[in-house]
């Protein structure tokens, strides 16, 4: 369960990004955060990921107040979260295998566990035959899948994605969203920040709409067809 109480964020230059956000996201939920550019979607995700601290308010994740964690505990918290960045944030000097293995190395997993798990997750995203390639040798869609594999490799309890389909063509975007649906069905909480209206319609879920740093709507998905995609 993620709870946000009266969250506000003002950047150092004085620009307000979020105002008085109150929110509850139960475990296992699938939530879209949407809104136009500059609405505060990415800021909200960065606060949830502890990449920034709120100017005011409290964030509880699994009963822990993340606004009061020190850097070591933030690092430990992040090991249970998978994050897919808009710009992928892959290490271009390392291979696909090494990029995906990184979160496991951070957790001091054994060599054998790393090999097995990385291969499994690359198979899941369909890139097992490219594990020795470097990210710059891959297409945008493939890089996105490497980023997803890196987020999934630790079996996260929470998966967050910032504009995951923003740089992809339509077919690939559908494929990625199907993958998120499958991950959510396995019990992982998924939060996706997007302004891709077509995906919101095609894969309807709870949608939180932001505008100028305020929540202007928080709508549950339509009750038809039990939230599955309609292809």
């Amino acid at each position, binding site marked *: 369960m993620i709870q946000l109480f009266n969250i506000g964020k003002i950047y150092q230059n004085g620009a307000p990004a979020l105002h008085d956000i109150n929110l509850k996201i139960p475990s296992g939920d699938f939530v879209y955060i949407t809104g136009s550019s500059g609405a505060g979607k990415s800021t909200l995700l960065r606060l949830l990921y502890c990449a920034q601290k709120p100017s005011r308010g409290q964030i509880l994740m699994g009963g822990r107040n993340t606004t009061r964690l020190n850097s070591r505990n933030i690092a430990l918290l992040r090991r249970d979260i998978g994050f897919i960045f808009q710009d992928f944030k892959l*290490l271009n000097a390392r291979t696909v295998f090494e990029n995906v293995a*990184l979160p496991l190395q951070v957790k001091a*997993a054994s060599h054998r566990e790393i090999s097995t798990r990385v291969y499994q997750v690359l198979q899941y995203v369909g890139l097992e035959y490219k594990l020795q390639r470097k990210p710059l040798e891959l297409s945008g869609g493939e890089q996105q899948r490497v980023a997803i594999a890196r987020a999934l490799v630790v079996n996260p309890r929470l998966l967050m994605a910032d504009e995951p389909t923003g740089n992809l063509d339509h077919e690939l975007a559908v494929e990625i969203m199907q993958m998120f649906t499958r991950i959510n069905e396995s019990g992982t909480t998924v939060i996706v920040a997007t302004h891709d209206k077509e995906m919101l319609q095609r894969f309807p879920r709870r949608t939180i709409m932001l505008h100028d740093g305020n929540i202007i709507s928080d709508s549950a998905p339509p009750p038809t067809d039990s939230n599955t995609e309609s292809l």
Partner: protein
Amino acid sequence: MERLRYFIQRTLFSMRQSPLLCSATIGTVAIALMLLAFFTLIVFNVQNLTREWSRDIQVIVYLDQVPSENKLQLWTEEIMQYPDVERVHYVTQQQAFERFHERLGQNADLLEGLLPEILPAALEISLAESARSREGTERLIGLLKSNKDFHDFRYGQEWLDRYDASIFLLRLTGTMAGGFLIFATLFIISNTIKLTIYARRDELEIMGLIGATPMFIKAPFMAEGACQGIIGACLALGGCHLLYYFFLKKGLAALLTTAAAQNIHFLPLAYQGGIIALGLLLGFIGSLLPLRKFVRI
């Protein structure tokens, strides 16, 4: 164990991965430390030279009468008990006369017809190395004066003053130049490593975002800095040895006497170990300082 293996692999891999940056850092460390090592080499040899000079610092007590063997034994034991005394040597009248004869060289015939008894017997007292200064000499004379048989002392006051002044100047110059060199070395190395870390700031950021603790991120970089420091220091010692061989050993040998050239030595093992340890430390600290700025979770 897995973590240690990861750190070692990362350190070696990072050095192989960016050979240009790695070479630039090692080269900077090597040049900076070579200057420092060569400066240390010069200071070390100048210190050796002054130590040689200081052997001439001694207090001579001229004796009014030739002492009996018992008395001489007593005096020697008494003087050897004083602090800072290294050796006591009794010079008989005959020995003094022979030395004087030798010093006169071609004019030695002036002494014809004279007997050795015209010169007094003397005690030559050598000081321990730590007391070879005007202060040490005066302290010893103060103690010797407590014996009423000793009242005529010679210790080359003017020479001692000049020696003290030159040692002070050498130490001051050495400390200032050495301090400046160490500071400049740290500054240069730290900035070079800062540039290499800046070039890899994305890696630092991504590591933090996927849950690495600050220490996990920093450790391979610090190990890399320390390795580069050690390699740079070894190269610096090699370069310094070449400078020593061609400029000091071969070059100065042509200008100085053979004996003086033979007294020029390369840095002893302890100093070489010190330079390598300094390289390790500079590489380590040089990495740590910029990492503190770039690694923010």
